[in-house]
């Protein structure tokens, strides 16, 4: 963890850790795991809000809690860039991490796999593997998606690959 910035580190220590090692095919234990996921997400979201660092919305898209959808945003040069966010809980969860997708950015950067799955191999997967089953969705967002956005959005914006929605509207009018 040496290389992480202090604010990520302090956020991480405040997200409750999970204990149940259960995946979506495990029935009762999965419900238990799901409760722990919610607790961690609630804690992380309210922490972000109180620190004025709110940056995502996520909720389960099906009753089983195997599909999650929402949005995330990043502020660059005082402008807010917002993206759709989605992922499935893999059958081998939590042994393998969820593959976070930003479908709107598919094809716009090579730090991405097919379908808009962001590349987490180097900076996140080793941490996830070492901390299984204690890390959950909230940790994946904090340690996987947040640094990815911080690294990629400025490049995408500066290179013109991603346009702010206000600029898109004006360019469409003209």
């Amino acid at each position: 963890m040496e290389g992480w910035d202090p604010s990520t580190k302090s956020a991480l220590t405040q997200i409750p850790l999970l204990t149940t090692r259960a995946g979506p095919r495990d029935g009762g234990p999965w419900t238990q795991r799901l409760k722990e996921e919610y607790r961690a997400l609630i804690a992380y979201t309210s922490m972000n809000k109180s620190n004025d660092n709110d940056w995502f919305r996520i909720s389960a898209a099906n009753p089983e809690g195997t599909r999650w959808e929402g949005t995330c945003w990043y502020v660059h040069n005082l402008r807010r860039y917002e993206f759709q966010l989605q992922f499935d809980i893999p059958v081998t969860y939590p042994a393998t991490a969820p593959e976070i997708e930003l479908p709107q950015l598919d094809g716009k950067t090579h730090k991405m796999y097919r379908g808009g799955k962001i590349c987490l191999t180097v900076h996140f997967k080793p941490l996830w593997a070492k901390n299984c089953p204690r890390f959950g969705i909230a940790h994946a967002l904090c340690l996987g998606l947040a640094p990815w956005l911080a690294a990629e959005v400025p490049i995408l914006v500066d290179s013109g690959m991603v346009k702010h929605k206000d600029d898109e509207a004006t360019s469409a009018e003209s």
Partner: protein
Amino acid sequence: MTLIMKSATIRRSKVKELSAEVVDSNPYSRLMALQRMGIVENYEKIRDFSVAIVGIGGVGSVAAEMLTRCGIGRLLLYDYDTVELANMNRLFFRPDQVGMTKTDAAVQTLSDINPDVVLESYSLNITTVKGFDTFIESLKRKSAEEGRSSGVDLVLSCVDNYEARMVVNQACNELNQTWMESGVSEDAVSGHIQLLVPGETACFACAPPLVVASGVDERTLKREGVCAASLPTTMGVVAGLLVQNSLKYLLKFGQVSPYLGYNSLKDYFPAMEMKPNPQCSNSACLQRQKEYIQAKPARDALAKAKLDAESSSEAECPLHMDNEWHISVVDDSEAESSNIGKKPDALPDGLVHELPNADKYQEPPASGETSAITDDLEELQRQLDALNSS
């Protein structure tokens, strides 16, 4: 030009039985010659086998073509991707197939090459809950008529990521299905194949890939690109090693490699064996390990009977007529028992083994009670929704 037109329309018809007749028109004559030369006892048996290939990329598509040309009975193909121009540095797919799903494009080519093979195409993502169910069901489909837990004889994993390998591992552990794993490194200059027999050899989760400790700065993200290198040569070699091992396993000839590496820079082929991890995190793997250890007496008896049968046929006449020095061969077990008063793996006083003995089944220690979260799931959902909407 007319020749090209003509060749494009030629379709060979299906054959009923594999013939060993050496004529230009027999697609199986060179394969049946394996039998004549004493390499394979019964090559025709290949038509009874079903093989599932997961991942129809640089390795999987070539492996599928090899098995098709060998006359395999049934091939099940799994992939969720489509053919792209970026795939053309590898073998098998053609530019005119760009846009088709990889499984459909493969079926198109393979059914032309050998119409005798039954081909099943599954365009799905096996890592999702729904995809996994279809995957398991398709593997089990012909199991009733075969009288086993799985309807295929071998699963070949030709995927390019850790998540999918873990899924194949999960399915095969649950179905007690022998499988082979294959991989090519991201820099395209090395690869490996591995045989996985649930309970007997290490499963994919038994020895997780080296988890390199963090220290990763988000800025370093920019240096690495996702786009991995690939070479048709390395992929072809690995596919060849994989299918060779599969043929040896199915047709029972030669030695089946438990693990074979390929380092193309030094042309080095390391081989090794891996025992299962008694502390594996995969519960299906632990279950298979338990069954394997419990079946040990029966396996030993069978091996002994086989050995006895062989030795009795040999020991008709003594090897040496005179034995002036009374030299005799002593069995390993006798040698051990003569080592009186000391258990073979006894440790000095005060020392204990940290890990359990792999030859004995150990009950996993009961995990500490999960902290009881009494909260209602719906209440938690409401709390998150409230946060989301504020």
